[in-house]
């Protein structure tokens, strides 16, 4: 394993310290328990948005704390969900009285830890559970689908509503709506390596890819030979479209997300290939996002997310945002 680190134990802390120092105009970092807040306090009456999850998906979520997005983020150890005390401490810091909305990716660990935090809290709170990964069969008897890159979009769009005075219930409803209207799927060319493990989570042959991979290096739908970008893109998109069923001429947001080890050039190439397919199907790309936002350490790979848009979503997507990883309009 080659990583810029001093020890697996200090990896997270030193990275957080660097993040906090590099962006002290936007965020403040707290330790034991670890959480990140905006550098300025929550406005009175504004619903506080808190997300969190295992570390290793940066810039999600710490890089999404700031005006127009999250009020706080709770980073767990690498790929381990955070613990209730983190959510409680973060809530205490950022709840201005209007309540707390937790944005949680659908993994047992995240769900249970956030649930326990919610049960221990005194103030009003609600949760949005993201489960956009269409690689996984959905069923009400199981854990269901995984929450992946659409979480970034939920945080942006709900963040805008919260900023403009939406109530806790309105924010929750909008978050659920974005999630329902989103579908994602990813593919990996290489594994990630958890610092504490020191070796790759899985092994891929020199010509293999993991199709439908999870953002923790969990195996996906199947292992396959590497194909051309257009073939991969088509298969990812077909799976998402089959799930989302966008209408003819419907506006969508196309989000090409890198897993951490894939250069931008390739993400834009995927964007081009995706556009070719979507154009052919009369699905209109009204908004776009391309970059490494919901990563899996240094994994080489990418995911595509489609979100069906309406005017409400577009308005909240376009509104000003000022975080370390996403910034526009201010």
């Amino acid at each position, binding site marked *: 394993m080659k990583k810029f680190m001093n020890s697996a134990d200090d990896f997270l802390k030193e990275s957080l310290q660097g993040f906090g120092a590099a962006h002290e105009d936007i965020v403040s970092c707290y330790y034991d328990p670890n959480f990140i807040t905006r550098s300025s306090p929550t406005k009175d009456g504004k619903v506080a948005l808190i997300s969190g999850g295992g570390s290793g998906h940066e810039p999600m979520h710490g890089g999404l704390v700031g005006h127009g997005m999250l009020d706080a983020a709770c980073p767990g*150890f690498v790929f381990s969900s955070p613990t209730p005390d983190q959510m409680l401490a973060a809530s205490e810091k950022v709840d201005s009285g209007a309540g707390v909305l937790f944005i949680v990716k659908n993994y047992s660990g995240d769900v249970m830890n956030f649930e326990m935090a919610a049960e221990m809290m005194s103030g009003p709170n609600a949760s949005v559970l993201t489960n956009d990964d269409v690689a996984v*069969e959905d069923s009400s008897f199981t854990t269901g689908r995984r929450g992946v890159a659409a979480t970034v979009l939920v945080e942006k769009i709900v963040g805008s509503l919260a900023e403009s005075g939406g109530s806790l219930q309105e924010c929750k409803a909008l978050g659920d709506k974005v999630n329902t209207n989103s579908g994602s799927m990813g593919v990996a060319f290489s594994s990630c390596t958890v610092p504490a493990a020191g070796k790759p989570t899985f092994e891929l042959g020199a010509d293999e890819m993991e199709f439908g991979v999870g953002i*923790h290096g969990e195996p996906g739908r199947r292992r396959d030979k590497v194909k051309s970008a257009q073939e991969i893109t088509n298969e990812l998109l077909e799976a998402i479209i089959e799930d989302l069923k966008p209408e003819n001429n419907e506006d969508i947001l196309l989000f090409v997300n890198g897993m951490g080890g894939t250069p931008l050039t390739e993400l834009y190439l995927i964007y081009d290939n995706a556009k070719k397919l979507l154009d052919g199907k009369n699905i209109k790309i009204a908004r776009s996002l391309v970059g490494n936002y919901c990563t899996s350490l240094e994994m080489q790979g990418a995911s595509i997310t489609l979100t069906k848009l309406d005017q409400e979503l577009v308005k909240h997507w376009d509104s000003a945002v000022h975080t370390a990883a996403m910034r526009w309009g201010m």
Partner: protein
Amino acid sequence: MSVNFLIQKAKEIQVVIDANAAEIEKLDQEIGDGDHIFNVQRGIKLVIELEPTIKDLPISKALNQIAMKVLSGIGGSSGALFGTLFMTMAKGSEIDEGIDFKKAIEIFAEGVDAVKLRGKADVGEKTMMDVLIPVSNCLKKGLEENKDKNEILIEAVAVAEKGMLSTKDLLATKGRASFLGERAKGHIDPGARSSQLMIKTVCESVNS
């Protein structure tokens, strides 16, 4: 059961878990995200480090501190679940008046019930519940049937092992492995394995 007993068991568990670390790590890499062993090792270490802080506390307070340490120190599914187990045990009524074998089984069973509620998983879903629930049932049944303590403990070890092994051929419907569908078959659940090792360690150590 005393605070000292708890710390001693934690130390014994640490030895066993460390000895099986590579296997447990591999299990969670195969059907999870690979962190289970680190979560468990971190949790055990933190509990053992509590010794000076809790050694003179009443058992309910000590158990509660252990529960909080587990809950805040582990993270992931196992942190929430093991945390729930200890939090519930710490709340068991009148435990400060002493925990005998019967009381120990009662609070363990209450803990397992709480874990079941927290994780919404039952036997057969390829999780640690495939170990915890059968063991809890076996212990309760042994008590009801007035079996000999040692016999009960030996049975519990066997039941734990059987439950752990049963996860191998199951389809997962809870936890990360559920995302794998058919591909999770043929792999033992990491949480079932770590739970089974802990139960075996404690039962065999008490029964000696």
